[in-house]
């Protein structure tokens, strides 16, 4: 008994010590509430060059606390439930619309934004945030086809319809997302990716079902790993995932079908939980600076919406049609709209039925 009590006391003392150390460290790095010179940034994992954080702190004196999330929905739930004090976060397009509707965002004071003219107007004033009242673009990208030139000839996979070719039997990996899979099918039928017609959706589902023999797996983030390991010849996924896979395997290439695809945005917004607004504006302006935007794009590998950042990117990146598609393709890209609860479920039900159709 005595031994047990000694043991438990020892553990308690250790816990108190660790907790104290953690609090101390937190107050040092600025996660704690005590300091005013902080910026609480809530972002996707590995979505900001750490060197830029150091540079930002050096230039402005604000310490950055960088917390990460792995899905829009997780981020949304955490902000909605409160108890957090995030000053800036980076939702995707449809989520911005949803958060805006639910009054979770603060409007941006454009008079305090110094770098707003650096952005390419093609990526501003989108339907999910007219006049950029609430958000500034952070990165943008596309949905497309990644293929391995060891197994596939480039000219065979330039368009969505090419994927239905019988020769690709059991060769394709599809991203596990209702919106993206159905967008692909809708586009092949010349429909909008935001189509709200039961008949069109049913037709898209039927079309998708005929692709099933060619599908090897329906997975998510693992696609980049599998493609880098030559597990499959073709995959349908996002440009960012593709760029990471291509970094690990020189046989991989990425195509955005010219007939159309999804254009997605991750925009930076100020949630209503923001407490350090001056720091938030300082960061928005810092990230709008062309040099910083270029450095971040080089680090993360996604496409920057900052027009004046282009000269700072390497020649090869700037002219890479895979990630900065030409105007003709860009004009055919469509942004996802928030479908609302009812249609989100319809899309997901259709996708679930498609997934079930394999047996």
């Amino acid at each position, binding site marked *: 008994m005595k031994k047990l009590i000694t043991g438990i006391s020892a553990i308690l003392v250790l816990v108190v010590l660790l907790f104290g150390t953690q609090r101390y460290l937190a107050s040092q790095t600025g996660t704690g509430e005590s300091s005013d010179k902080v910026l609480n940034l809530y972002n996707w994992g590995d979505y900001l060059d750490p060197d830029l954080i150091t540079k930002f702190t050096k230039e402005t004196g604000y310490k950055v606390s960088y917390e990460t999330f792995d899905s829009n929905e997780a981020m949304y739930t955490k902000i909605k439930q409160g108890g957090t004090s995030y000053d800036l976060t980076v939702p995707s397009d449809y989520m911005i619309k949803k958060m805006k509707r639910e009054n979770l965002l603060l409007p941006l004071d454009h008079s305090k934004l110094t770098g707003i003219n650096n952005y390419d107007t093609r990526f501003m004033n989108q339907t999910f945030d007219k006049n950029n009242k609430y958000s500034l673009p952070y990165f943008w990208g596309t949905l497309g086809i990644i293929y391995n030139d060891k197994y596939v000839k480039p000219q065979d996979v330039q368009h969505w319809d090419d994927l239905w070719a019988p020769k690709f039997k059991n060769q394709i990996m599809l991203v596990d997302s209702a919106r993206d899979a159905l967008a692909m099918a809708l586009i092949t039928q010349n429909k909008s990716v935001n189509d709200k017609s039961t008949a069109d959706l049913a037709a898209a589902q039927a079309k998708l079902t005929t692709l099933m023999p060619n599908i090897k797996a329906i997975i998510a983030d693992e696609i980049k790993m599998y493609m880098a390991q030559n597990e499959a010849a073709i995959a349908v996924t996002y440009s960012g995932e593709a760029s990471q896979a291509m970094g690990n395997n020189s046989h991989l290439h990425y195509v955005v079908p010219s007939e159309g695809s999804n254009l997605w945005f991750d925009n930076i917004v100020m949630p209503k939980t923001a407490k350090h607004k001056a720091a938030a504006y300082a960061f928005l302006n810092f990230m709008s600076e062309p040099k910083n935007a270029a450095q971040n794009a080089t680090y993360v590998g996604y496409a920057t919406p900052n027009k004046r950042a282009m000269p700072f990117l390497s020649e090869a990146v700037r002219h890479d049609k895979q990630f900065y598609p030409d105007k003709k393709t860009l004009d055919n890209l469509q942004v996802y709209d928030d479908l609302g609860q009812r249609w989100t479920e319809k899309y997901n039900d259709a996708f679930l039925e498609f997934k*079930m159709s394999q047996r």
Partner: protein
Amino acid sequence: MMPKSKRQRQFFYIIPYGIWLVLFVIAPLVLLVFQSLTTPTGHFTLHNYAIYFASGTYLRMTFNSVWYAFLITVVTLIVSYPMAYLLNQLKQKQFWLLLIILPTWINLLLKTYAFIGLLSKSGTVNNFIGLWGVVPQQLLFSDWSFLLVAAYIEIPFMILPIFNSLAEINPRLEQASRDLGANRWQTLRRVIVPLSMPGVKAGIQAVFIPSLSLFMITRLIGGNRVITLGTAIEEHFLVTQNWQLGSTIGVVLIVAMVITMILTRDRARRSARKGR
């Protein structure tokens, strides 16, 4: 005086258990059932259950879940019983048992990723069979790979209870059976297996029930070619954010688990009554 203070003391001991039970068992269950019976605006409805039972997709998915959980249980049982029996014959049995339990200390996701390394086209298995000139085979994303990985992960939970119930059997019973003229096979069938039945049943519960709601492996190894209810629950909670329907599926799964518990327990009692 004594009994009262004893009762008081018992009451005192029950407090942490009671708090635990209410906070982590009863409250979540009530919330889950409540969610499943409401609309997003908070009105009472049976609509979610109507959707579930009217949908061929969900019913097929339920069937899939039960079928794969059954297969996983059968595979683990076939492997585990002889293994547990063999372990019991060994000298350093606790040590050998430890070796089998050891993998459970490693995170499930890590083990799954390890299997990706083994089974992928450029993985260890394909490299190995490649030594004999076999072209790389598609091993991942099949029923077989899914069953293999799921069974591998569940095996310790099947071996442990069987091993314990085998270890509890008095060795004299075995000797007596041999003395009375039973051969090895008869001893096994008439003495050892019936006496180890409680362990088998505990093992079936420990494997079948978690297998019903597997979902990470269905995607990582099965490539979503195996779809179970876990997939649907994940989708409703994370993507469509229809927690009501997600809860409904959760309730259905819990009911399926309760049925499993009752079935395995009931049979145990009946065989006890038969007095084997």
